[in-house]
């Protein structure tokens, strides 16, 4: 019963909350649609925390996405053990990198009085959830090796079953607790992200790449192109 809630109901709740929450926040409070940087208050530790964390989490998330979206490609690729070792090794190294950054960021929030002044309870909760997620992920990589391979028969089809609105709990039901924690915590993070500072993920300023350097705004007349 609990499995049905965690692996068949929670994902839908989380995704709904994420989409509705993000739209709601964007429409009603666009002003708050960003994170509150604390580099101005403390820069040195932020560098060692933020840079490893961000690049680590971006690459690791892209790796997860790749496995979920293109399982057949992955399956073909890892048919040679060397490549499997390579992928797992890289993933593990990146995981350690982001964990290092994350711990430093948490540590920084705890000890820097200036940063504490801008830290809300929810910021701490979020950091702890992320820490649980990272530790669980690395734990899986250590204790249940070759996840890239076995997930192709478990987590990936489960995700596809979720996507096709016919959730098959049995894919997840018999997996170790650590894997379950990693999966459930992921949905929790997705569900709460629009209500936290994580919302800044959606404000990646890609338009900067092609917009003209100068912006001139006319009040009454549209600019002549």
């Amino acid at each position, binding site marked *: 019963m609990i499995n049905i809630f965690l692996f068949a109901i929670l994902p839908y709740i989380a995704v709904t909350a994420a989409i509705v929450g993000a739209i709601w926040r964007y429409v009603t*409070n*666009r*002003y*708050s*649609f*960003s*994170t*509150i*940087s*604390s*580099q*101005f*208050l*403390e*820069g040195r530790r*932020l*560098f060692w925390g*933020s*840079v490893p*964390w*961000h*690049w680590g989490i971006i690459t690791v998330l892209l790796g997860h996405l790749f496995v979920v979206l293109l399982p057949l490609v992955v399956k073909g690729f890892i048919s040679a053990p060397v490549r499997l070792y390579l992928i797992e090794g890289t993933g593990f190294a990146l995981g350690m990198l982001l964990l290092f950054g994350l711990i430093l960021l948490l540590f920084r929030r705890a000890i820097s*009085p*200036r940063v*504490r*002044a*801008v*830290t*809300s*309870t929810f*910021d701490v909760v979020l950091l702890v959830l992320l820490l649980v997620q990272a530790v669980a992920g690395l734990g899986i990589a250590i204790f249940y090796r070759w996840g890239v391979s076995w997930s192709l028969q478990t987590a990936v089809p489960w995700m596809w079953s979720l996507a096709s609105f016919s959730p098959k709990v049995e894919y997840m039901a018999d997996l170790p607790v650590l894997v379950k924690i990693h999966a459930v915590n992921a949905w929790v993070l997705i569900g709460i992200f629009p209500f936290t500072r994580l919302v*800044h993920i959606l*404000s*990646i*300023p*890609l*338009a*900067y*790449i092609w*917009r003209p*350097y*100068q*912006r*001139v*705004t*006319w*009040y*009454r*007349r*549209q*600019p002549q192109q």
Partner: protein
Amino acid sequence: MDVRAQVAMVFHLDKCIGCHTCSIACKNLWTSREGTEYMWWNNVETKPGTGYPTLWEDQDKYRGGWEVKGNQLRPRLGPRLGVLSQLFYNPYLPVMDDYYEPWTYDYETLANAPAGDDQPTARPVSRVTGRYIDLEAGPNWDDDLSGSTTYARNDTNLSNLTDAERASLFQIEQMVFFYLPRICNHCLNPGCVAVCPSGAIYKRAEDGAVLISQEKCRGWRFCVSGCPYKKTYYNWRTGKSEKCILCYPRLEMGQTSSCFHSCVGRIRYQGILFYDADRIEEVARAPESELVEAQRSIILDPKDAAVEAGAKKNGINDAWIDAARRSPIYKFVKDWELALPLHAEFRTLPNLFYVPPLLPVINATKKGVYEIAETDYFGAIESARVPMKYMASLFSAGNEEIVKKVLKKLIAVRSHRQSKKVGNISENQANALLVEAGCTASEVEQIFRMTSLPRYEDRFVIPPYQRERDVETAPDRTAIKQKGQTGLGFTQAPRRGP
């Protein structure tokens, strides 16, 4: 020709007494909120000195402004992808310690301390953390500290000076300084706009004010590095950047900006300039020694019929054209060529022009007595207490001839008036100085009037904005929707964080 109007400014540095009234006027109006306590949209620094924030002029440190790469003009912060790759940590961002940590005092102790042998003291308390702090920096911490090893001697403008020049500058009893009030320059080619990843900063076409949309700002903070004058600031409470808004709500009511209005020394002038927006990039790319001249050339003569027609085509009405014709800024910058942009080499085409100070330039010679020799005024410029190299580094992108020319004119004005009123300089000598400075008696008389006897309406020529009409005919009527919601364009309380 694309004629646009710009609210521009002149500060006459000889008249600045360093009283900081401008800073206080601004602070009371705009930056007395939590998160903005450390911001001084208007500040007055002592030169030579490191300024606020410390070493703001050092672009190797902060990477503000533009550089010419090949034939391309690009922000010194780097190419666009390079900027984006630094989203997670901006290595060129000044941190709070480069400004100072704002504080208040523990006043309650004075009233509540138990009776004892010692007088209670009010210790400083940080306005960020609420803890007791030791004060190591504050607003105007280096005020009047010429010669100090921490501040004056680290001024980046001294880097081109020889050791002998530096030594003479900081000799005991020979020390010299002047004040440099600074606000946002509302540049024609703003660096902050160019590096804003969110595209939240924009230049208002009607009057040229450079503003940050608080709603669009996502707090990436590149504007803080990208502005070479360090006139955008990060609000650590709201997670947004803020900057001088040129008191646009005041301008729209026909009033001059608050720091101008409150200026005790009456050093400030505000008015309209017309410029050719088509030429911005070309002018900003000019070779360094020609930058000042190039910037003068982008400013258009509002009396010219073609300029008038171009202005009308762009929706600039007769009242604005009239204001441009009466603009004190046009007189200082174009007619008299007395006012110069600060650090033109940043290539942002700033719209705040400075009349460089003459007083600290004239040499004090024997026994600390000012010796203003009638016969050798220009000798005084060559052997100035403040080396011309230093003045040129500030006001003419290193081109000493431009600064010298301005100072010669200022000397001509002085000697002309002295020969008339005091009689310590003969008329012949005064006339010779006029010739040397390349100006006429009537021009000098005009400069004198505008410098010493201007009335309020001579100093500030603010055109009527007719905002109510603009608001009602605006395409999207946003301003009407937001009517009654005061503040910096906020549509709700700007409260964020814990």
